[in-house]
């Protein structure tokens, strides 16, 4: 029998909620642990590993120079790198920082002590090193995480669905937010979460990133019909998706 793959979990700037999503899987977690050897997982383990990793699972955004160095080292030591959670895959809420000049936001939080705190514009992990698998979502949707982990272990690729949240939302027979007179980011956001937020009465905030080929003009028409200020929509879109602007450069 071949040895179990060595898997390590790492976190950068994030809330660590995605790691907890994994810990929250209950006894199913033991099935996962039967398939892999977790060699590092700082939040719940004290064990350390000094060799290479078969799979590195990375949560969080890259927000300072120290993190850039650290993620590069992790990448060098890992055969496969999975970015999980919106912070890692698209920058997530940490990207909102990029709405402000760096100096200004540093001073606003730490005042005179700002000099102690190094910071760079928020980057998604994939904007710093090569990422093999993406599990988006804030937090990650556990069934998708398991699916991606299995793909990684089998060495086959996983593609994040490139159709709108609406597809899944409709299958769940939710009353459309637009029908309720509300605007929702579902039509331009990638599915894969089983329309989690809308199932629970809230709108989609776009945490899974945008579909690859959104009909921008069509979406603007729809939004205009509901008398919604474009700035408001842009602002909402930037809650999770601000970092995509770094791709354009």
């Amino acid at each position, binding site marked *: 029998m071949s040895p179990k793959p060595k898997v390590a979990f790492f976190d950068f700037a994030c809330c660590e909620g995605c790691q907890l999503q994994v810990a929250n899987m209950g006894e199913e977690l033991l*099935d*996962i642990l*039967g*398939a892999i050897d977790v060699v590092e997982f700082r939040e719940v383990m004290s064990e350390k590993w000094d060799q290479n990793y078969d799979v590195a699972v990375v949560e969080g955004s890259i927000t300072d120079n120290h993190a850039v160095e650290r993620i590069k080292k992790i990448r060098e030591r890992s055969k496969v790198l999975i970015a999980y959670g919106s912070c890692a895959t698209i920058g997530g809420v940490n990207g909102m920082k990029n709405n402000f000049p760096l100096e200004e936001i540093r001073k606003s939080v730490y005042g005179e002590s700002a000099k102690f705190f190094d910071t760079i514009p928020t980057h998604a992990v994939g904007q710093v090193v090569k990422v093999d698998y993406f599990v988006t979502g804030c937090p990650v949707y556990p069934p998708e995480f*398991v*699916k991606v982990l*299995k793909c990684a*272990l*089998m060495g086959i690729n996983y593609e994040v669905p*490139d*159709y*709108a949240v*609406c*597809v899944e939302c*409709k*299958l769940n*027979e*939710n*009353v*459309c937010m*637009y*029908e*309720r007179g509300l605007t929702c980011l*579902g*039509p*331009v956001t990638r599915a894969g979460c089983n329309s989690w937020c809308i199932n629970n009465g809230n709108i989609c905030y776009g945490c899974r990133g945008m*579909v*690859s*080929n*959104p*009909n921008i*003009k*069509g*979406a603007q*028409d*729809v939004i205009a*019909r509901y008398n919604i200020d474009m700035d408001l929509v842009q602002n909402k879109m930037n809650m999770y998706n601000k970092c995509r602007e770094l791709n354009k450069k």
Partner: protein
Amino acid sequence: MKNLILSKERFEHFISLLAKKHNVMGPVHKGYDNFSFQPIKTAAEMTLKYVPTIIPPKKYFMPQYESFLEYDKTWGENMKAVVESEALVLFGVHTCDIAGIKALNIVFSDRPRDYNYLSRKKDVTIMGLECNEYCDEFASCAMMNNHLPDGGYDLFFTDLGDFFFVEVSTLKGDVIVEEIPVFEEALGRHFKELQGLRARKAKTFTNEVGIEYQHVPKILSDTKESLIWNELGDKCLACGNCTNVCPTCYCFNIWDEVNLDLKTGKRVRMWDSCQNEGYAKVAGGESFREERSARQKHRFFKKFKYMVDRYARFFCTGCGRCSRTCMAQINLKETLKKLKEEYAR
């Protein structure tokens, strides 16, 4: 075939008894004029005057997600072709949705036959319910001639005030009316009231688009190059709502899901949509319908031409769901009207 009546006073009793013996699904109000077929136990949970449900009853015939093959690396004895099926009674299915089920029956009974669909179909009892009034401005059931019962159900209910007129259409239906003895024989005056309703309906259910549906295939072929398709493409968000809610859309995708042991797994299929980005992509990455306009056009042609050429049956039931659900306001009736105008020119 026989005809019965069910007095309104006994209706609640009928549903309760039915629900004791069977898994009953009926139309349930979800708020904001939205309805959905859901499991019910009592008549009170249902809303019988409803506009078409968000998802049509096709969900009981071809589940959104279904595993159909369980297998492992050995490809040998451990391979099992499976179907998951539950005996169900669907109560309150409108004639448009019955037409949708009939369309799906044709696709899945066409050789090679799809046993997963067919074994599930065998398990479903359909109790239709007539629309006495017109539902809303999106429907075009009169144009498609689907506003009157025309088979495809086991029992058919028509609300005639203080009683339901009940048409028993199949043996399966007959077994149910025998096992739940709440029905009475239909008499002459009952038939008369039914005829009265149908006469009234003839006045309100009139062709909504002003095109004989038999002419639509020709209109479409002649407006293939029309700019109207580009207009639809500009509006369309490619969210796939129109196909997911369509009672005759049946496209699906297939993939494998491995269990955590990485040794056993299953093959599953799930609804897919010709509107989704990747639907018509081949391995090399080329997509045969890259433009959203081409995808919308494909949808219209599929409903009104391709399937007519193949099965001599229209795959639009006139339920109006696609227009009702479209946030970009792509409207089937309006589009047909525009195409007709262009065709006439």
